[in-house]
C-alpha cells in the first residue's frame, strides 16, 4: 500500500511527545503481570519495566514473518539503552497511540511498519531513558546531566548506580520531556546491524503461540459451513445427523453460515460435513472466470480516471516511426497463509476476550463492539503470532464469525477453518487487464506511452473515503514509469467483477509493474536495443533507479555469455519508497519456465536490520515465483475452483532459484521491504523468456503451451 498520509517530522515529534502521558487508555496488563510479585511501570505506552529489571517492549504491528517483532523493538531499545538480547516483546492492544500514522489505523500493511516507526519509536525509547535518568538524578540529588544510562542501568557521580527496575516507578510519574535528542546514526549499536531475530527460538521448538494454538479454560471448538458461493446465505438447514454425533454440543446459525460446536475440532468438523444446508447462492451464483475477464475487457471502453496526462499521446503516436501495443492479464490470487483462518472468542454479558492472528486491531475492536453490543473498554483484544498474513488478516470475517458463535453459545470457542474453507473464502488479489501502447521515433527513442488498466478496487470496500474521482490509490501503485518519455497517458477503470477482493502482498504494484516492465522491454526489442541500455538511456533524471539498475546488471554479468539454453531478463521498479532492480536467469525445460538465478539490487534507504531485509528479499522471490508459475484462482458456477495446495500450488524447495542480493548503502529515509520484490520477478522472468524464445508472456501464470 502507498502511504496514505506522509507524516512530517513535526508530526512524528508531536506524536512522540504525546506518548509519555502515563498509561494509555486501552492498555491492560496481562494477568501474569497482575498476579506476579514484581511491580510493573510504564514510562510510556511502548515500554514496561518490572521491578525485577525485566524490560518489555510493545510491538504495535502484527508479526507475520516480516520481522516487525524484532525490527520495531530494536528502534526502542536503541535509544532506551537496554541489552536487546534481554528484552521481551509483547504485542500491543488496540490503542490510539499505536495507530500507524501512514495508514491512519492500527493496521499492519503497506510495508509501513519501519517507515512509520523509524523516528517515533526511537523518540519513545529516548523519552523513557531521559525519564529514568531524571528519576535517578532526583533520587541522588544530583544534576541529571551528570548521570548516564547504559545497559539498563543509570550511573551517576561517585559511582552511584541504579537499575531501570529500581527507577521505573519514579520515572513513570515524571512528565515526559517535550524534546529529546536522538542518536546520530553513527552511534547506533543495534539499528542497521544484522541482529538475529528474537522470535526464532520459539519458532523452532514449537512454543511460539499462533492464533490456532490459543486455549482458554472451558473452550469449545467450532467448524463453520459457509455458502460455496461467497456472499450466499442460509435458507434452511437440517442438523439432525450432526447433533447426534459424538462430542457435538450445539449447532448455531450465524450471519455467514452454520457452525457446529463440539468438544474437539475434529468432532466439530466431521459433524459440520454432515449438515444439509439449502443456500441462497446470491447474485454471483453463475459467475465464471470467462465472465470476469469479459467484464474487465468491457470496462476498458469506459473513460478512465487519469493518473497522468502529459504531452499529447495521440499526436506523438501519429508521428511515430514504430507503434506497438499489448494487453497484460493478471489473475485472482489467494493469500493462502500456512495458518488457516481461525479465531478464539470468549464473549460474556459484560466482557469479551478475543485472541488470534489479526492484522487490523482497530477494526477488530470496532467489529467486536458492534457484534456484541459491548463497549470497547469491555473488550480485550490480544494479537498472537500470525502464521502468515500477506494481507489476508486485514479482513476479519473469521473473527466476526467466532465472536458471533461465542455470543450465541455463551462459552469460549475457537473457530478453525479448513484449508478448503480458507482457499474458497478468501478476499482475493484482484484480477486485472492492462492495455499498453507505445510509439518510437526513427532512432528507436520512445516518444509516447499509454496505459489503461481495469481492475476491481479493494479500497472501495475497505476505505472508500480515500477513493476520489474514480482513483483508488492502492490500484495505481507503480503505475507511472520512471522513464523519460515525453508523451504519456495513464488511467484506470474500477470494475467490480463480483468476486470479493482484498489486499495481497505488494497490492497493485504486482499488476502495474508486470505491465510496465514487460512493455518497456517490448519497446526496447522494437527499437532493436539492449533492454538494460534502453531503460538506462531513459533514466538520466532518476539516479536511484539508474543506480540499482546498473548494480543488478553488473552483478548478474549482463551481456556476458551464458550456457546454451539460458537467457537473462531485467526489470526495475520503485515501491514503498524502495528502489529495486532484478535480473532473472532462466531456461525452458519440458515446456515449463525454470528460474535458475535471481540477482537483486535494492536501495531501501536506511535499514533497521539487514538480516531481516535479506529474509524479506528471499521471501519475495519465492512468493513471486509461486505467482508466475502457478498462481491462479478461477471460478465456475460462482465457486472458486481451487480448494487445496494440489490445485493452488505453492513453490517448493526444488524449484527455488539461487538468490543473490546487493543492498545499496544509503542514508535516505527507510523504504519498505516486505512487499516490492514479488512484483518485480514476473516481468524479469517474462523478459528473460522472450530473450530465450522470442515469445512474450503477457498472462500470468506463465504458460509456454
Amino acid at each position: 500500500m502507498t502511504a496514505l498520509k506522509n507524516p512530517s517530522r513535526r508530526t512524528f515529534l508531536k506524536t512522540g511527545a504525546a506518548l509519555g502521558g502515563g498509561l494509555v487508555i486501552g492498555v491492560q496488563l496481562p494477568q501474569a503481570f497482575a498476579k506476579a510479585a514484581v511491580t510493573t511501570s510504564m514510562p510510556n505506552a511502548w515500554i514496561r519495566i518490572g521491578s525485577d529489571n525485566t524490560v518489555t517492549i510493545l510491538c504495535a504491528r502484527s508479526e507475520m514473518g516480516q520481522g516487525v517483532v524484532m525490527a520495531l523493538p530494536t528502534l526502542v531499545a536503541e535509544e532506551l539503552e537496554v541489552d536487546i538480547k534481554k528484552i521481551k516483546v509483547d504485542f500491543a492492544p488496540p490503542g490510539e497511540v499505536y495507530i500507524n500514522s501512514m495508514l491512519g489505523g492500527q493496521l499492519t500493511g503497506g510495508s509501513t511498519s519501519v517507515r512509520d516507526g523509524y523516528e517515533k519509536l526511537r523518540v519513545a525509547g529516548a523519552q523513557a531513558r531521559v525519564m529514568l535518568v531524571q528519576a535517578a538524578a532526583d533520587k541522588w540529588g544530583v544534576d541529571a546531566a551528570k548521570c548516564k544510562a547504559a545497559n539498563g542501568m543509570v550511573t551517576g557521580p561517585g559511582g552511584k548506580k541504579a537499575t531501570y527496575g529500581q527507577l521505573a516507578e519514579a520515572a513513570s510519574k515524571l512528565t515526559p520531556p517535550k524534546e529529546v535528542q536522538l542518536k546520530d546514526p553513527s552511534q547506533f549499536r543495534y539499528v542497521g546491524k544484522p541482529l538475529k531475530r528474537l522470535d526464532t527460538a520459539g519458532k523452532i521448538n514449537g512454543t511460539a503461540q499462533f492464533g490456532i494454538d490459543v486455549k482458554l479454560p472451558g473452550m469449545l471448538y467450532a467448524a463453520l459451513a459457509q455458502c460455496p458461493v461467497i456472499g450466499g446465505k442460509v435458507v434452511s438447514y437440517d442438523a439432525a445427523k450432526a447433533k447426534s454425533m459424538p462430542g457435538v454440543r450445539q449447532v448455531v446459525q450465524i450471519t455467514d453460515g452454520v457452525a457446529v460446536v463440539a468438544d474437539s475440532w475434529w468432532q466439530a468438523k466431521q459433524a459440520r460435513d454432515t449438515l444439509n444446508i439449502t443456500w441462497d447462492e446470491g447474485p454471483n451464483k453463475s459467475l465464471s472466470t470467462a465472465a470476469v475477464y469479459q467484464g474487465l475487457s468491457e470496462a476498458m471502453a469506459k473513460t478512465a480516471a487519469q493518473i497522468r496526462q502529459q504531452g499529447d499521446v495521440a499526436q506523438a503516436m501519429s508521428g511515430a516511426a514504430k507503434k506497438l501495443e499489448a494487453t497484460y492479464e493478471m489473475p485472482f490470487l489467494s493469500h493462502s497463509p500456512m495458518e488457516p483462518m481461525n479465531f478464539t472468542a470468549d464473549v460474556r454479558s459484560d466482557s469479551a476476550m478475543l485472541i488470534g492472528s489479526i492484522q487490523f486491531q482497530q477494526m477488530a475492536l470496532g467489529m467486536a463492539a458492534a457484534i456484541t453490543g459491548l463497549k470497547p473498554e469491555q473488550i480485550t483484544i490480544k494479537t498472537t503470532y500470525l502464521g502468515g498474513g500477506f494481507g489476508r488478516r486485514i479482513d476479519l470475517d473469521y473473527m466476526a464469525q467466532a465472536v458471533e458463535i461465542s455470543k450465541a453459545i455463551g462459552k469460549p470457542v475457537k473457530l478453525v477453518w479448513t484449508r478448503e474453507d480458507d482457499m474458497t473464502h478468501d478476499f482475493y488479489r484482484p484480477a486485472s487487464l492492462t492495455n499498453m501502447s507505445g510509439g518510437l521515433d526513427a532512432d528507436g527513442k520512445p516518444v509516447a506511452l499509454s496505459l489503461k488498466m481495469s481492475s476491481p478496487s479493494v479500497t472501495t470496500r475497505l476505505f472508500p473515503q480515500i477513493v476520489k474521482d474514480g482513483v483508488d490509490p492502492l490500484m495505481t501503485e507503480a503505475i507511472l514509469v520512471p522513464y523519460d518519455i515525453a508523451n504519456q497517458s495513464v488511467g484506470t477503470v474500477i470494475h467490480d467483477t463480483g468476486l470479493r477482493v482484498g489486499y495481497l502482498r505488494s497490492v497493485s504494484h504486482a499488476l502495474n509493474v508486470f505491465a510496465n516492465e514487460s512493455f518497456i522491454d517490448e519497446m526496447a526489442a522494437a527499437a532493436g536495443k539492449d533492454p538494460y541500455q534502453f531503460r538506462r538511456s531513459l533514466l538520466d533524471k532518476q539516479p536511484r533507479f539508474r543506480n540499482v539498475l546498473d548494480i543488478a546488471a553488473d552483478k548478474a554479468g549482463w551481456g556476458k555469455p551464458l550456457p546454451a539454453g539460458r537467457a537473462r531478463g531485467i526489470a526495475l521498479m520503485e515501491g514503498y519508497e524502495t528502489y529495486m532492480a532484478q535480473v532473472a536467469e532462466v531456461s525452458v525445460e519440458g515446456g515449463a519456465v525454470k528460474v535458475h538465478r535471481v540477482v537483486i539490487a535494492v536501495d531501501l534507504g536506511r535499514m533497521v536490520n539487514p538480516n531481516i531485509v535479506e529474509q524479506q528479499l528471499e521471501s519475495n522471490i519465492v512468493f513471486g515465483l509461486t505467482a508466475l508459475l502457478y498462481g491462479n484462482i478461477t471460478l465456475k458456477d460462482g465457486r472458486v475452483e481451487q480448494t487445496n495446495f494440489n490445485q493452488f500450488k505453492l513453490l517448493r524447495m526444488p524449484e527455488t532459484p539461487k538468490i543473490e542480493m546487493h543492498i545499496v548503502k544509503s542514508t535516505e529515509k527507510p523504504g519498505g521491504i516486505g512487499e516490492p520484490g514479488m512484483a518485480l520477478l514476473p516481468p524479469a522472468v517474462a523478459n528473460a523468456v522472450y530473450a530465450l524464445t522470442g515469445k512474450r508472456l503477457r498472462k500470468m501464470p506463465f504458460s509456454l503451451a
Partner: protein
Amino acid sequence: MARLTINGKTREVNADPSTPLLWVIRDTLGMTGTKFGCGAQLCGACTVLLDGVPVRSCGTSLSAAAGRKITTIEGVGATPAGKKVQQAWAELDVPQCGYCQSGQIMSATALLTTNPNPTDAEINGAMEGNICRCGTYPRIRAAIHKAAGTKGA
C-alpha cells in the same frame, strides 16, 4: 482408550480411533507445536516422526499411531540429529512467520538421521513435501548443510 508413546512418554488418550493423530496431539494432548496446514497431506506442516519416519499426522489415524514411537517438535531436540537441526536453524535465523517450521524441522531431522551427508538433490527429495509460504527454502537448505557439516552448492 489408546496408548501413545510421544517423545518418550506414554499417554493414554480417549478419542475415536479414526481421529487424525494431528488433532489428538494438538487438542487432546495440548501439544500445539505440530501445525494444521492443509488436512490433506499436501503441505507437511503437521509432520511428526513415527518410529523415526516422517509422516503427515493429518493423514495418520490415532489407531495407526498407537503403540509406535512418536516424536514431535516438542521432543525432537532430545535426538542428536534434531538438536543439530534446531541449532543450525537458530544460527541461520531460518523462520519467518514460523508456522511451517515444526514440520520442516521434523523432515530435516529424519533426513539427517538416515543420511548424515545429504547432497542438494537429496535435500530436495526429503524436503519437497514441506511448503513454506514465506519462502525460507534457501535458509532451510543452508541450515541442513550446516547441521550436516557439509557445504551447499
